[in-house]
């Protein structure tokens, strides 16, 4: 692999944005996985498809409409789930299918804009602009600060809601905050792996890290490391071999998970 590719400014932007997104998805994803909300990222991503289609139809930058539609949909579905006592997996299915349905209907109205949609479905990290990079870094920084400030409250309400409530933690508000931050994270990450593979970044590094880590912080750091490794190596390999970055990144993550499972099966992984 030639080091020359590291001198290109588009590659700098791709790697910087990719690392930020890898860290963000891994942190938010850990809370979602532990809340048994693994597919929530997928559902928000699919609802963002409706937002992207809306943006393309009305001539607004599609990611802005995707932010709006995804966050509002996620908050509404969370409210409906709580109010009508719908199970988590069923509410995810509703969110997921309604986003795709809205997107398809809007595409039908517009007569189709398949080329633009394609880049959102599968990601286009090598095409991120300077403005995109600044936006990704700003949102990542803001969300990580919120998580650090509310670390105990978020972890406690993820661990056991009832006990967290008794300790005076506003669990419902924390739940909405997590959903809100997950919505922002998903749409921000669409440029890296696209709508269809987004949940892989949320779930796979965390499932892998949980097999190694003892404590929460240790698990989060391992997950971030795996995620950053997959993204950086995935971007570089995909450029050198001219293959899709999204698929390469996800396959590398799956490779790390498979390797961990083999190590664990061989009894080489002990948490004690």
């Amino acid at each position: 692999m030639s080091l020359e590719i590291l001198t290109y400014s588009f590659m700098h932007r791709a790697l910087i944005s990719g690392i930020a997104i890898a860290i963000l998805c891994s942190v938010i994803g850990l809370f979602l996985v532990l809340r048994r909300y693994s597919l929530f990222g997928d559902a928000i991503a699919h609802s963002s498809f409706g937002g992207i289609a809306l943006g393309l139809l009305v001539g607004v930058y599609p990611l802005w409409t995707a932010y709006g539609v995804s966050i509002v949909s996620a908050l509404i579905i969370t409210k409906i789930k709580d109010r009508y006592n719908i199970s988590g997996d069923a509410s995810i299915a509703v969110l997921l299918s309604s986003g795709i349905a809205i997107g398809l209907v809007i595409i039908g109205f517009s007569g189709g804009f398949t080329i633009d949609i394609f880049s959102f479905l599968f990601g286009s990290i090598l095409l991120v602009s300077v403005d995109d990079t600044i936006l990704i870094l700003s949102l990542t920084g803001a969300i990580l600060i919120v998580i650090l400030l509310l670390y105990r409250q978020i972890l406690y309400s993820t661990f056991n809601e009832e006990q967290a409530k008794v300790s005076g933690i506003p669990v419902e508000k924390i739940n909405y905050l997590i959903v809100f931050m997950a919505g922002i994270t998903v749409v921000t990450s669409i440029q890296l792996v696209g709508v269809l593979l987004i949940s892989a970044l949320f779930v796979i590094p965390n499932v892998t890290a949980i097999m190694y880590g003892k404590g929460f912080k240790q698990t989060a750091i391992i997950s971030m490391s795996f995620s950053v490794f997959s993204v950086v190596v995935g971007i570089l390999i995909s450029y050198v071999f001219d293959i899709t970055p999204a698929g390469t990144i996800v396959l590398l993550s799956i490779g790390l998970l498979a390797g961990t499972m083999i190590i664990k099966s061989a009894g080489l992984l002990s948490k004690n």
Partner: protein
Amino acid sequence: MLKVVEINNLTVQYPDVKALDDVSFVINQGDFLGIIGPNGAGKSTLFDSMLGLYTKYKGTIKFFGEDIKKSKNYLKEIGYVPQKPIFEKNFPVTVNDVVRMGLRNESDENRIDEILQQLWIHELRNRRIGELSGGQQQRVFIAKALVNNPKILILDEPVTGIDQQSIELFYSILRELNSKQKITIVWSSHDLDAVNQLANHVACLNRTLFFHGESKKFFSDDKLVKQYSEASMQEHMHRH
């Protein structure tokens, strides 16, 4: 004597059943109150109401003279140990992490070490909570409940599913907390013998309050114990 908790005319009506009917009693500072009653007697409903988890009750509950519907400040003075804490077995948190979750003043790291040592679980501090036995887990949850130096410890059938050796250790810890550290303990249990040995006060619940007073008065009155057992059995048969 300082009234820590005052419950007046507490009634909880669920859609299909009246879980508590006009229950009134007072818990004073330093009391070790055992709340006994069969399954479905309303013990968990009483705790849920006291802890602010259920709010659609009639009547009033006061902690330190203040109605709990008006302020949640009282929760700072409470340590709560649930019946069987529900969490994912693979949840990646150590004993240290769990106790730290309960700590309000996050800079007070020494307090975590202190409480882990007091409950003989210091050597387990870096183990994942899901890897521990039921008895060890329960001690961790007591440590979490005590880490903020609460004035009241509320325990909802805390020894369910725990081996006998761990239960004995658990009871000796409770006794010490009440007698030496003067923590008021409110503890629900099925085990009348254990309540007789540990608690200085008893509340017999069977949706209504059958008896509340000194435990030695209750347990020394065979007629009263028999009446309560029969009433509980009848209510249990009626429900099932």
